[in-house]
Each structure stands twice: as C-alpha cells, then as structure tokens.
C-alpha cells in the first residue's frame, strides 16, 4: 500500500516536472529520469560555482562568463527548466554588453530560480529513493 502510494507519487512528480523525460523512461532503463536529474544537479552546481568565481575576479572575463552561461543555459533548456533558462538569457544580454553590474544582478535571479529548481529536484530524488526502498 505504502509502496504503491510512493510509486504513484514519483510517477506524478515526474509527469509534472518532466514532460519529455517521462516519455523516454521505459523498462529497459527505469532510472533514466533519476540519472538525468542527478547529472543536471551536479553539472549545474559546478557551473554556478564557476560563474560565481568568474564574476568575483577582476577584471571580469566576459568571454568566459558567456561560455559558462551558454553551457548552463543549454543544460537547463534541455531538461525543460524554463524559468532558469529565461534568467540565463537575460544574463547573457548583460554579458554581451559587458555590463558587470547587470550581470551580477541578473546572476542573483539565476541562482534564485536554480535554487527553487534544485529543491524540487531534491524532493523528487528523495521520493524516488523512498519508493525504491519499499520495493
């Protein structure tokens, strides 16, 4: 009973979070969504740290910043994280204009949206773990 409830919970979370990923998960790789989420989680954390460092260095290397943000935006877009992706777009505009202050402000937005997303992903992964433990 508990197991079914958790499994249903996982399935419905997956459906609401990941339209496309849900379609791709199948019996041959039941952990696919979990793997992608974990990948994104680690990858995006790393990129955020890199961007943070780049923003703190003087003079700011806008080229490098743009490169990091391009990667970050790409990953976010690939898993369907719209709000994060939109904030990245805004950031890159400031970056192209070499507007340091704009970048710093915009990056706060990026981090905020990313933190919200991370929280949701954490809850998802936690639920997945719980569900597998009751199996």
């Amino acid at each position, binding site marked *: 009973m508990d197991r079914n409830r958790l499994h249903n919970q996982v399935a419905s979370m997956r459906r609401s979070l990941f*339209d496309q990923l849900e379609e*791709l998960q199948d019996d041959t790789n039941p952990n696919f969504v979990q793997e992608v989420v974990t990948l994104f989680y680690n990858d995006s954390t790393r990129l955020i740290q890199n961007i943070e460092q780049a923003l703190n260095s003087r003079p700011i290397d806008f080229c490098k910043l743009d490169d990091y943000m391009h990667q970050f935006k790409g990953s976010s*877009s*690939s*898993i369907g*994280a719209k709000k994060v992706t939109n904030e990245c777009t805004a950031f890159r505009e400031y970056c192209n204009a070499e507007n340091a202050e704009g970048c710093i402000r915009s990056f706060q937005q990026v981090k905020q949206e990313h933190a919200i997303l991370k929280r949701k992903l954490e809850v998802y992964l936690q639920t997945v773990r719980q569900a597998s433990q009751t199996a």
Partner: protein
Amino acid sequence: MELMKSSDNIIQDRTQQQHKQEPEMQAQEGQQEQGHHFHVLAVDDSVIDRKLLEKLLKVSSYQVTCVDSGDKALEYLGLLNNLDSDSTASSSSSSSSSSNSSSCSQSSQREGLKVNLIMTDFCMPGMSGYDLLKRLKGSSWKDVPVVVMSSENVPSRISIRCLEGGAEEFMLKPLQLSDLEKIEAYLLKSLHLSCTNIDKDDDDNNADHNSDNNNDKVVNNDSNIDKGNNSTSMNNNFSKRKALSSEDTESRRPKIKGLAVAI
C-alpha cells in the same frame, strides 16, 4: 511549477506520441528487413545533451555512439590517423581535404565500421559542429548524412551556412521524439545509398514509407510557418521546437532533400 507546461501541451505530447509510433514501427520494420540497426554517431560537449540524445535514439531503436568533441568523432571514424595537425585544425583548407579523402579511404572503413547518421552540436569548444561537418564532407564519410543541432536560435546565415556545407538539417535543441521522425528519412536514404545488395522490393517499400513520411512532414512544416516564430506559444510543440523565421524556412526548403520532391 516552473517546469510544468500547460495541460494542453501534455495532451499534445500524448497525441504526438501516438503519431510517432507509426514511423517508429516502420523504422523497426525497415531494420528487421535489413537485418541490422541504424547506427548514429552523436557529437555533443554537454553531458546532459549526450544522455538525452542517446536515450531519444535508443528509444527509437537506433544504435548510438556518443562522443564529446569533434576530434573524438574524427578519431572514432578513423580520420585522424594520417594527419599531422589533427585537433588544432579548425577549418580544413581545400588542399588538405583532398589529401584527407585519399589517405583516409582505407582507415575510415576500419573493421567494417558502419555509421548511418552523424548528429552534431553546432556550438562546441575547439572544433565546432560546422568545422566537423566540413571535415566529414571532405572525407570518405562524405555520404553519411549529417544533422547539426543548436541549443539556441542561431542567425539564419549560420544555419544556411551549415546546410550549404552539406548538412541535411539544422535542428533546435532540445530534440524531441517528434524530431526523430525527420531523422528516420535521412537514415533510410543513407541505407539506400550505401547498401548495394538491397532487394528491389525492400527499396520500393522504403520509398513508399518515405513518401508517406514526407507528406506528414510537409503538413507539419506548413503548420510551423503558420505558427511562425512565436516561442512563447505553448499551443503547438512544433512551433516551439523549430522557432524558424519564414526566411529560414524559405531558404531551408530546397536543401531538405527528402522534401524537395513533395513540395
């Protein structure tokens, strides 16, 4: 929830899933008839995009090899063996590309390696997707269809440049299962070109399937044009996927070989 699309979209996705099953079954039938799986080489520097692409292709019953750079792709295809300056060459000059094709013809077909389609990201550090495309088209792998992907709206001059450089298609990431239907057409075409011992009947079957698929695609492209460039419209996944200006579509149309006849 930020990741949740509208419920309309979810319904659209389910409908598209039904649409995709038909060509998927045709692809699987094609593979069973030929007795092998299509092999796709995927080139992308993003680990997440590689994972997603690999999954997309495997779900569609293709064999997949993923590499993370243009250099690794060339290495895999056996195109780096006889070159002195391999990884640093960003764009091959015409003189070096001619020597490429002559010296690599033996090594490129190493151990009966078969690749039916190459999908590459456009924006990569080091060798870009365009550079890789040019290298491939100047090699003995030039007949393998190449699809270039990009994570963002690139200016039409860039996508046109890729198409003129020999790419079959320029696709917007993230790819969806519905995008794989287009790829199937290129794979069937490459099979037709490369296999000399295909039964005549099989050819006809594939041609029929192709024309059916092409008709579907023509309809889809028309709806793309109608919906235009509205990336905020969530009513139709196709418009979000393609996000082409009509200028793009106009210049792209003649290049998409499979569709040229239908249009």
